[in-house]
């Protein structure tokens, strides 16, 4: 039976359609689950994705109100049973504000306003991330060091925490994707490091690896033809399989599918 994945649509979320398509493309069944439904119905799903957007208009703080919603409470409970959870951009902000990443019960991180050279505010561009050794179920089948071009688009994407906390998460394999330069070296400055994230973290997972908060948008890089010419790298070339062949963002959804088949 095909695993069912709930794509949570809270008010203000605006990436649910392409996220559902990304899941379907990976061979899973996706269903957009709106906030008006009873939260308990979420328990019938085998995994969850919190897509991008501006849940609750980013009122109070990005992700802060959604993190207290009954839907996210159920997702938190189900994640403790090992079900996979992926939060993309605003979804990542929700997972951080809810304490699902890095996990452990408390809120240990923030996604702070971008810190950029001669710029403030919202920033959108294609960037590169490097796969790190990690127990993360979405990336663990990928070879460490592999570089993926992905689009990012956010104003608050700078992972930060208590002094030394992000470094400890990197050592523990809980930063499965880090911003990098064209040669695959960890990014140290803008624009390769687009938001000033500590330890150049583009994504953080929990210790078990089943919950991932990622700031770039893999669902916007499902096909090779969508990848910006300026950044294609290994994805450049004659577009084997044509422009609709699997793109760099698809590998994360394939990781989800592989995990659910193995589970």
């Amino acid at each position, binding site marked *: 039976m095909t695993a069912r994945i709930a794509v949570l649509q809270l008010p203000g979320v605006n990436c649910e359609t392409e996220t559902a398509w990304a899941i379907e493309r990976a061979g899973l069944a996706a269903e957009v689950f709106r906030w008006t439904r009873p939260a308990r119905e979420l328990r019938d799903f085998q995994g969850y994705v919190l897509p991008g957007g501006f849940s609750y*208009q980013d*009122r109070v703080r990005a992700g*802060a109100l959604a*993190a*207290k919603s009954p839907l996210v409470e159920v997702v938190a409970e189900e994640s403790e049973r090992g079900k996979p959870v992926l939060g993309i951009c605003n979804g990542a902000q929700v997972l951080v*504000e809810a304490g699902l990443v890095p996990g452990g019960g408390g809120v*240990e991180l923030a996604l702070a306003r971008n810190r950029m050279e001669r710029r403030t505010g919202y920033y959108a561009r294609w960037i590169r991330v490097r796969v790190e050794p990690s127990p993360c179920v979405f990336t663990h089948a990928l070879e460490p060091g592999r570089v993926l071009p992905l689009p990012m688009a956010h104003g608050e994407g700078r992972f930060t925490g208590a002094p030394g906390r992000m470094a400890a998460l990197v050592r523990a394999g809980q930063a499965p994707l880090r911003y990098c330069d064209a040669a695959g070296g960890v990014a140290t400055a803008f624009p390769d490091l687009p938001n000033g994230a500590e330890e150049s973290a583009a994504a953080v997972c929990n210790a078990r690896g089943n919950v991932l908060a990622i700031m770039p948008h893999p669902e916007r890089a499902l096909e090779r033809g969508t990848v910006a010419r300026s950044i294609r790298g290994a994805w450049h070339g004659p577009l084997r399989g044509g422009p609709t062949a699997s793109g760099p963002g698809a590998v994360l959804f394939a990781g989800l599918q592989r995990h659910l088949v193995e589970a």
Partner: protein
Amino acid sequence: MTGATTVSLAQAWIALRADDPDAVSALLVARASLGAGRALAELRRWRLIELAGSRLDRDAIAGHLHGSTQFYNPHKEHCVVRVTDADPLPAPGLAYAVVWERDGDRRAAAERWWRHETGETVEVHEAHVWGAAFAPGTAADVAMDELVRVRDARHGLLCNPWSQASATGPRQLPWIGAPGGER
């Protein structure tokens, strides 16, 4: 204080003329999800701008704040200017908390505008002030602390301490970066 007296620090409390959506949502979520929220009777929010270093008087400062698009829109917001601790707060009797972004509270564009218009070099800082009223018998300062600082899904809402700083309780000017908070 007379309008002709120059000041070194001015506070602008800016609020929507309509209900503030952030405050309405925060009130509902706090009541539904947080222990400290159950006793909440009222929650209001202001944008707080502090302007340090001006030698202009209160009326001139208020005029520049009103006349520029850098600070507020008088068609949909109103502004109360305070220049001393004795000036009344916009809503007396509430428990207050001020929340600002760590190393991100400066308003560079507003500073440039002020220099261009007045010739003065000032610092402009921005934060949010939350004002809360609690049910009778509630220790308001304790409840406000619980409401502000996020610890986990059940505790805190208004300030994520890993990216923001906050201060609660009575204080003297300036409020942003005041003792009890951090910059």
